[in-house]
């Protein structure tokens, strides 16, 4: 029950409906049309209704890291095809397509950065790369993120946007959940903060491993977050799901996240949190 759902957006709704060479964008929330650069300048947040549109990993990096600077770690890792998987199109071809589409080698970037001047270990899923799904490379990089953070005593800020484990790497993808959580446990034992940001969408094997194990869990405004995809649940219980089910506000109501945050306020909030969490008497 951990895989990228077909009903999750792979491209932004507003892109599909762009008018005339993508110069204008249609808001997925309020249907207001606006110049593309106006939406981009506001990090994909609609100025009229605050609807959060998907933005690429590069934009998140600009938004979160001081000066947009990331000293990338393990950037050379590339996926293999351990199962020789094909659904008609070989997995290796799907990877090539995803690399072309996203301009990145895999579905996550990790590295060292600064947040309000404080050194952090930073990770960001790339949803545009096969729905941010977690195969061996993603699992390995998250594990290295936690291990490096432990070695360098850096707080971890991880932005998740993922449909779950990557089907095409089969059972090896499932094992990434255990591997990464084990590394996180070592970090937790040394009392180094882990701020988990659950962006749209965070489901399946990523949700059911490290995503909810943050010292603080922050859900992005309007994000879809859950274990099973909505369609899987509907097919199981044979009834329609209530409005707002598995949305960020639903998780807040059920005590699963500390707060729901606008994308625009997230960095400042994390800066404040790290100030608090790193100021205890034992903190180095």
């Amino acid at each position, binding site marked *: *029950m*951990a*895989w*990228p*759902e*077909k009903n999750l957006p792979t491209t932004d709704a507003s892109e599909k409906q762009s008018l005339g060479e993508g110069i204008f964008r249609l808001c997925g929330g309020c249907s207001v049309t606006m110049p593309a650069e106006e939406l981009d300048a506001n990090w994909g947040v609609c100025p009229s209704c605050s609807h959060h549109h998907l933005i690429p990993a590069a934009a998140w990096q600009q938004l979160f890291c001081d000066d947009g600077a990331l000293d990338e770690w*393990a950037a050379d*890792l*590339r*996926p*293999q095809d*351990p*199962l020789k*998987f094909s*659904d008609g199109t070989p997995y290796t071809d799907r990877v090539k397509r995803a690399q072309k589409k996203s301009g990145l080698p895999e579905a996550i970037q990790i590295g060292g950065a600064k947040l309000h001047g404080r050194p952090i270990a930073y990770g960001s899923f790339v949803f545009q790369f096969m729905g941010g799904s977690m195969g*061996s*490379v993603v*699992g*390995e990089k998250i*594990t290295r993120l936690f291990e490096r953070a432990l070695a360098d005593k850096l707080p971890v800020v991880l932005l998740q946007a993922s449909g779950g*484990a990557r*089907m095409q*790497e*089969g*059972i*090896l*993808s*499932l*094992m*990434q*959940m*255990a*591997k990464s*959580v*084990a*590394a*996180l*446990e070592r970090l*937790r*034992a040394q009392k180094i903060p882990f701020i988990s940001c659950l962006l749209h969408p965070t489901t*399946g*094997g990523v*949700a*059911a*491993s490290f*995503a*909810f*194990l943050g010292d603080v869990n922050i859900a992005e405004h309007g994000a879809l977050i*859950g*274990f*099973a995809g909505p369609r*899987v*649940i509907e097919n*199981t*219980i044979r009834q329609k*799901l209530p409005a707002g*089910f*598995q949305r960020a506000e639903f998780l807040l109501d059920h*005590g*699963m996240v500390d707060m729901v945050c606008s994308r625009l306020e997230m960095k400042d909030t994390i800066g404040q949190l790290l100030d608090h969490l790193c100021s205890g008497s034992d903190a180095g």
Partner: protein
Amino acid sequence: MPVVLPFEKPIVELLDRVRDLRELAQTDSSVQAELELLEQQTAEVARELLSQLTPIQKVQLSRHAARPYTMDYVNRLCTDWVELKGDRRFAEDEAIVSGVAKYHGQSVVIVGHQKGRGTKENLLRNFGMPHPEGYRKASRMFELADKFRLPVLTFIDTPGAYPGIGAEERGQSEAIGSSIAAMARAKVPIIATIIGEGGSGGALALGVANRVFVLEFGCYSVISPEGCAAILWKDGSLAPEAATQLKITAPDLLRLGIVDSVIPEPPGGAHQDADLAAAQLDEVLSQSLAELSLLDGDALADQRYNRFRALGTFES
């Protein structure tokens, strides 16, 4: 009661004849030689037939309604069983059983998925699909084992964690993640055995162990073949192809390094002779537990860490 899958029919017929002859042999010693020959032939036919099964047929066998479940093994392998219930948060979840027992004279903690026999018990057990409460109970057991320095034996047999409204409301994701974390932390020996179906994260939540074994006709998968086919081709009837692509049978799991060994099943599968299946499992479990008991707590946690740390394949 016994459900017979189409491809099992020749084996079941032979096994029925063996049983009849065995009964006769009790009063008529002249059939003893014939019995032994038939037993041998049956084992050969069963091995031959089952070795030719397709991946989806092995999946069907792993889900066989007559297959021994967790408590069938616990009852055969352990004494002094005391079941422990509840997650201390919300409810008891009967899709997972847990407790303490003696195994070869040593106290151990047992945690396993538990399917039901028949409709009534299956509703109670939710077909072995736990809610968050089941995983929170499991986490509690791993912590209890760690606290009192008791080894843990887990038994994996689930289609997956239950996908429902209540499960989401009460944090299925967090419950599974926390169970994985509790297993990763524990400084005691943990041995996991996939006795039937190993369905996704709901299976892995009991699977972070120092040694992981699978029974000959057990399966372990990131997603069910039906679910995979529904996503890839929008057609659940293509599950056989998905089962083949996903590499989920015991030999695949061994080759990929997911399990440490494959435990042979009796002729025709574990459901044809639960006593023998338990005896064969016992051999492997008791030996592994003896090996692991030589390690101290830190070494056990490190071994488990390194075991999972090595899983995955990539270029660098």
